[in-house]
């Protein structure tokens, strides 16, 4: 499983495009928002938590169809399915690789983008923490969506339609953490609820994803 993770990471790094693309997209959305709504600092700092979270979510979505598509095309997914490790493990590793190449860079870059969005100083820690706890859920849920649509010719648009409603709870709690943190309110409740969603999704969804993959490979 470690070897699989290393392989996926290597592929993502060397194949180009996938790794930096999500990050660049995140940056571009954050740059576009002030251009759209106007550069007033007060307005930006009020909407910053939500915009940062929505942008992170969209950036995550962008690379989802790559999780299984290449392996499905060249047949290595069939080999992985017949390999002696459980398919649930494969799926988990795929989700982890997706998070390491998409979610983690977003988490690390988010303070800089928070600066662009004029996020209040108290919010930075909570922004990083909430993204760090929330983006794994996005990767795991996205892996499920990718597993559902892996056999389809033009699955990209369908994938967004399937996955975005599933992102709603994470988005609400994540943005709420930053919003409350930025104005100095207590953040425990949304933070714990979001961590709960991440933990629950990471524990249970690989079974659904593996099930969907088995159906698609049948």
């Amino acid at each position, binding site marked *: 499983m470690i070897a699989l993770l290393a392989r996926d990471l290597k592929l993502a790094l060397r194949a180009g495009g996938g790794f930096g693309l999500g990050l660049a997209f995140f940056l571009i959305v954050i740059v576009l928002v002030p251009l759209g709504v106007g550069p007033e600092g007060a307005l930006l700092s009020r909407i910053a938590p939500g915009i940062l979270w929505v942008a992170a979510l969209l950036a995550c979505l962008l690379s989802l169809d790559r999780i299984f598509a290449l392996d499905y095309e060249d047949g290595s997914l069939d080999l992985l399915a017949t390999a002696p490790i459980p398919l649930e493990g494969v799926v988990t590793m795929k989700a982890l690789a997706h998070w390491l190449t998409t979610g983690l860079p977003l988490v690390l870059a988010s303070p800089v983008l928070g600066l662009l969005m004029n996020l209040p100083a108290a919010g930075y820690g909570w922004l990083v923490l909430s993204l760090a706890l929330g983006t794994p859920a996005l990767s795991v849920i996205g892996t499920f969506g990718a597993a559902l649509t892996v056999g389809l010719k033009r699955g990209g648009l369908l994938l967004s339609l399937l996955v975005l409603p599933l992102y709603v709870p994470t988005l609400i709690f994540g943005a709420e953490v930053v919003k409350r943190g930025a104005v100095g309110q207590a953040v425990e409740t949304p933070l714990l609820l979001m961590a709960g969603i991440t933990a629950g999704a990471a524990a249970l969804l690989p079974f659904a994803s593996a099930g969907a993959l088995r159906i*698609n490979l049948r």
Partner: protein
Amino acid sequence: MSIWKYANPVLFMKTSGGILRVLVPVTAVLMVTGLMWGFFFTPPEMKQGSTVKIIFLHVPTAMLGINAWLMMLVASLIWLIRRHHVSALAAKAAAPVGATMTLAALITGAIWGEPMWGTWWAWDPRLTSFLILFLFYLGYMALWEAIDDPDTAADLTSVLCLVGSVFAILSRYAVNFWNQGLHQGPSLTIAQKQHVADAYWYPLMISIGGFLCFFVVMVLLRTRTEIRARRLKALLARERMA
């Protein structure tokens, strides 16, 4: 009577045909009575005037919007566990009906909200979670459409329905947390005595019964259509082979 018996399409067609023959007139009578009584023979409410009468459309459609998904969940489980083909088709048949009901509840709510709340739409928890439910319906139907092989499609949509149910419930409570509501509390609960005056209560109950029968009729009809479509496909395939 066991539902496994009706995995046999011939038996299902026969039974559902019999049920439909009775249920269609019952639906017509109940809906006409409930809606006519509700619209024309109830007094205008003291504060809301005659806008209150949209309750006879709004409440039944909203109830069915949620319960149709529940029915799809049960049907999907039956399909996943026991490969009950008719069950999978029933889930497929219910989705557009449920989506329409959800949309109807949203639209009637907006029509009522404009004079009463002064706005067509508010980001109220209930409204928002209903909109999210509608998106779930769209995704479910889109997945059915996207996959060619019927059994694969049934499997994948069932898995989506299971996972979607969990997230739909999560979203329901998450939005509660996210914004304070404008929507009033439930007017009808099983646990409590009625909050609705008798003058509205009886036509409302009849209307709900009518919509429920309507839902059953629609699902049965659409399931029958699906079965016939499959038969047709099988016949055509056989013809090509010969």
